Structure formats: structure tokens, C-alpha cells
């Protein structure tokens, strides 16, 4: 079976005035369905950029990226939006919830853009919220929730579309250690249920949950470790 993520020499260059910044400088990476991978590296090493490219929020400036066997380069912005909405779940460090919408409305949001009926949207969102333990917070707004609860809303929103891939960019970065541990436990459970997961983190203990670990430096993969196989592939 083809890999879920298949990157070959992917680069992302930002043009800022006179200097070009290569946020990604030739990434070659393959991720199988069902993998749980941590992405580590110093600040500015290109972790978020890699996540954004993988999740179709951004386009590479060079290289080939195939997602689920499909070449991405020639897809239109709207095609990318559709893949993003149906196949990918995003979790951000800063939660990124709509501040005035309720928990339920925030979780329903991706389904709004898939022409799913109001009743089904609601049923699916409620179901997911129960799974993340927020059944009693459905009609609260983000301001009325703790950071850990907000991040669980964000995870519920990422899961409600039944994605192939969950991308979490420093999901515990804004949380105290206990809430962080809860969120990591939730992500572990999702992996155990079969979901493919990529987590960006600085935290070695967080990375310890993952079966595979890559380290970025200056937009390149400098380390790629699989725990079970015990092998190390240097980029």
C-alpha cells in the first residue's frame, strides 16, 4: 500500500525583501497510515511550515508532495480547501476557536462546509464531544472554558470530519502540565483507535508518546528515529 504522506525534495522558500528564507530545504519524508510521529527541532527550524504544507494550508515552492497517492501540485485552492476539510484535522497551539460560537457550533464548523444537514451535524458534533469528555460544555463559549477544555474542543473539531490524518502543532504549548498530559493521553487514545497522527513539540516527554520522531534543523530533517524498529535514518 502507498504511503499516506509521500514527500520528495519538498522546499518552501519565503521571499522577504532582498533575502530568501528557506523554511523547508528539501524534505524527503514518507508516513504510513496509522503512524504516530513527533516533529521536533529548534524554534524557526521549519516545523510549522512542514505541518502547513502537509495539511494543505500552504503550498511547497519545489518538490513533489503526494497525499494518499495523489499529486498535490496541480490542485486549485478550492480543491485544497476540500481535502483540508474532509481528510485533515488540525489542532493548533492557540486553539483557534471562534470566540463567539459555542462549543457545539465550533465543532460543527467543518461540517458546515460539507453540505451536511443541520441535524446530522449536530448529532456528529455531540457524539465527538462526548468522546472528548465535554458533553456538559456544549453550549459554553471558549471564554468560559479552561485551556485544556478549549484544546479538547479543537480536537473534537478536528475529528468530526473523520479525517485520515491529525496534525497537531504544539498542542500542549499553551497548557499547564496537567492539562497537557490529558491532551496527550487523548491523542494517544486516538492513535490506538487507528488514526494517523503528526505532533509538533519541543517536549521530549511529549515526543515519547510517538512511535517515530523526526528532528528538523534549518528546514531539513537531521534525524528520523523509529522506536519499535530501533533504527535511525539520518537526513
Amino acid at each position: 500500500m502507498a504511503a499516506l504522506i509521500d514527500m520528495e525534495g519538498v522546499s518552501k522558500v519565503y521571499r522577504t525583501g532582498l533575502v530568501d528564507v528557506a523554511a523547508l530545504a528539501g524534505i524527503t519524508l514518507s508516513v504510513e497510515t496509522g503512524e504516530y510521529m513527533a516533529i521536533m527541532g529548534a524554534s524557526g527550524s521549519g516545523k510549522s511550515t512542514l505541518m502547513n504544507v502537509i495539511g494543505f494550508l500552504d503550498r511547497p515552492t519545489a518538490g513533489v508532495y503526494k497525499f494518499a497517492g495523489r499529486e498535490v501540485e496541480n490542485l486549485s485552492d478550492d480543491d485544497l480547501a476540500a481535502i483540508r476539510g474532509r481528510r485533515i484535522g488540525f489542532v493548533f497551539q492557540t486553539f483557534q476557536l471562534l470566540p463567539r460560537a459555542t462549543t457545539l457550533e465550533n465543532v460543527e464548523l467543518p461540517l458546515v462546509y460539507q453540505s451536511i444537514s443541520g441535524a446530522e451535524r449536530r448529532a456528529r458534533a455531540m457524539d465527538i464531544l462526548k468522546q472528548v469528555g465535554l458533553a456538559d460544555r456544549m453550549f459554553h463559549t471558549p471564554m468560559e472554558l479552561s485551556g485544556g477544555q478549549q484544546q479538547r474542543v479543537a480536537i473534537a473539531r478536528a475529528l468530526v470530519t473523520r479525517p485520515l490524518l491529525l496534525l497537531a502543532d504544539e498542542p500542549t504549548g499553551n497548557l499547564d502540565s496537567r492539562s497537557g498530559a490529558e491532551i496527550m493521553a487523548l491523542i494517544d487514545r486516538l492513535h490506538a483507535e487507528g488514526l494517523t497522527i503528526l505532533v509538533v513539540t519541543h517536549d521530549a516527554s511529549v515526543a515519547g508518546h510517538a512511535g517515530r520522531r523526526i528532528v528538523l534543523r534549518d528546514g531539513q530533517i537531521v534525524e528520523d528515529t523509529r522506536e519499535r524498529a530501533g533504527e535511525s535514518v539520518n537526513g
Partner: protein
Amino acid sequence: MNVLESSRIAVVALRANPGRSALTMLGVIIGVAAVILLVSIGEGARAYIEKELTGIGTNLLAIQPGKTSTAGGFHPPAAGSVHKLTYEDAKAIKRRAYAVSDAVPVVLGSGKVKFENLSRDTMIIGTAPEFPRVRNLFVEIGDFVTQADVDTKSKVVVLGRTVYRELFGDRPALGARVTIADAKFRVVGIMQAKGMTLGFDIDDIVFIPVTGAMELYDTDALHEILAAAERAEEVDLAIRQIKDVLIKRHAGKEDFTIITQRAMMSTMDTILTILTGVLGGIAGISLVVGGIGIMNIMLVSVKERTREIGIRKAVGARRIDILQQFLFEAVILSLIGGVIGIIVGGGIAYSIPLFYSAIPTRVSLWSVTLAFFFSVAVGVFFGVEPARRAARLDPIEALRYE
């Protein structure tokens, strides 16, 4: 995403900022209300004048001395010796133009009418018995000037309502003698009140036999001949026949002008249509200003909600979804503003005549329809650019926006 969903999202966003939404709408409300109001005043004036002109008498023709080029002109050149129309002309028309039912001589003058120690400056019309019939006027008490009065130049007078009230109050006037230009005239009739017609008080008039008037003013020229066609369809035929008769009598020259009711109406109609258009156009400018207000607020709103746009895009919103959402906000603002504006403008237009009867108004369906679609168009026109900016935002940058 369907239209219903977009509208729902737009309404939620608008309700999150009720004060701002209401103020933005106010611009459209004022614009639409102004359009409705000013157009209804223009339309009202037109309806009023049309009614008044019809009320003067149908099938009416006025033959005036002198040749004017424009149909419906109100000021033909003054009658010179060559151009004059005479009582004989009127009689000839009546006799020979069979499509003409009446041809009434009119001598116009003004002067003091005195009774005891009271007097009034008024309009004096010298005419013939058919005058009331042609002009849709009625005698209330006594009789109008008779043919015998005309033939014998009798010193008789018929008083208009206003003149009667000024000189006699409620006292009986029939048989009384009033003085006009040093001559005594016997009152033989009092006209029914008719009221103002086109700002002219048709009751502030006295009627005397045309022959007497010609003597009074020492002239044999008529101011005009009022003629009526037998039937409305025969107005053109009547005009041809009148021309035949008069040209023959005037040594082959067409030295007179025939003004038709229709020509007067269409001239007035043209003037008032232009007036209504100009008024509506001026009001339309304020609607455009309202539209600019919408655009301004939408641009601010897009900026403020950059992060929201980023979130929506990150979870799968396409450009068209974002475009629709913001466009609908603008259109809903202008649409609700338009509906309220129609109600407000229509309400004011409707109630003006209740307080100022001198300003007739008419709220027509076409102006309401036009204002409605115009306000929606304003929403689309001024909403599309902010919505496009929102739709074009880069999701990553939008998500980072503080």
C-alpha cells in the same frame, strides 16, 4: 455551502454588533426613504395636475390668436389687428365645423366689482351661454348669461363663489346691482364653488356677455375661443375642420394656434417626469452614500475578523464560501435597510397630505420596486470588494493575525 447557511452565518455576525449594524443600515434607510419620498412627491404632483387638467373639461380645444410653433405653449403672441379672432369666427366654427359641439368666445379682463361699500378686484370673463358646459362649471343659483343677453349686450353678471361671498356675505344677491367699470350690472346667477385649479381660483371670476365685454374693453378681438369636440376620438377631425373654417375666413393664413388638452397634458407630463427623475436621482445619491457606509463597515469587519476567516479556511471553507458569507452580510444590511426605508419613506409620503393638503403625494409600486432592487444592488456593489478581500486572504497569515 447553501444560501440558507450563508444567510444564517451572516445574520449571526450582524447580531453580534447590533449598534454598528443599525447605524450602517441607517444610511441605506435614509437613502431609500428619500428616494421613495421625493419620487412620490413628483408622482403626486403629476397625478394631481393630470386630474386637474381632466377636470377642466374633456375634448377641450383652445384656439388662440397668433401662430406658435410649440404645441401646448401657454403664451401665444398678443393679438394684433392681423391675427385677431372675433366673435364671428367663433360663430362660424360652431356653424360649419360639425365635429365641434361648442365654440365659445372668451374675452378676458380684470377690474373692480363693487357693491355698496365693498369692492373686489377680480377677473372678468366675457363669454357665451355654453361656457359652463365646456369648462365643467355649474350655476348654483339663478342662470348663466343667455344668448339673448349676448345678442342685446345686456348688463347682466354671473358671480363666482368667491366674489359673491366677498361682496354679499350670505345675503341674497340675485337682482342686486353691482358696478363694473362705472356701469351697473344686474346679478342673474351665482356659480357653484369649484375650488383651486392649478393654483388658480376659478371662483374668483365674474361672467358677463361677450358682447358687453368687448364694448367694455373697446375691442372686437377675443382672447381665445374655447371649443369642444363632439367626441374624444374626433379631436383631430375637429382641429382639421376648425383650421379649414378659420383659414378661409383669415384670407388663407393660419394665424392662430389650436391647443389641445392632450398637448397640454403631455407637456406637463414630460416636465413632471423629468422633475420626478431629477428628484429621485438626487435622493439616489444619498443611497449611494449609504452604500459607501456599508462598504466601509464591511472592510473594517473583514479586517477585524481576519482570524475567523483563517479558521474557517483551515477547516475547509472555499473562497466562494467566504465570499458568500461577507457578501450576504452586506446585502442583508442593505436589504433590511431598504425595506425599512420603504416603510419609513412610504409612511412619510402617505402622511404628508394629511397635514399639508397642498402637497399631494403618490407612492407608486414602481418606485417601491425600484428602490428595493436599487438598495439590494447597492449592497451587492459595495459588498463585493470587501467580500473578495476576505475570500482572497491567505489562511496561514489569517490564522496568525492578532
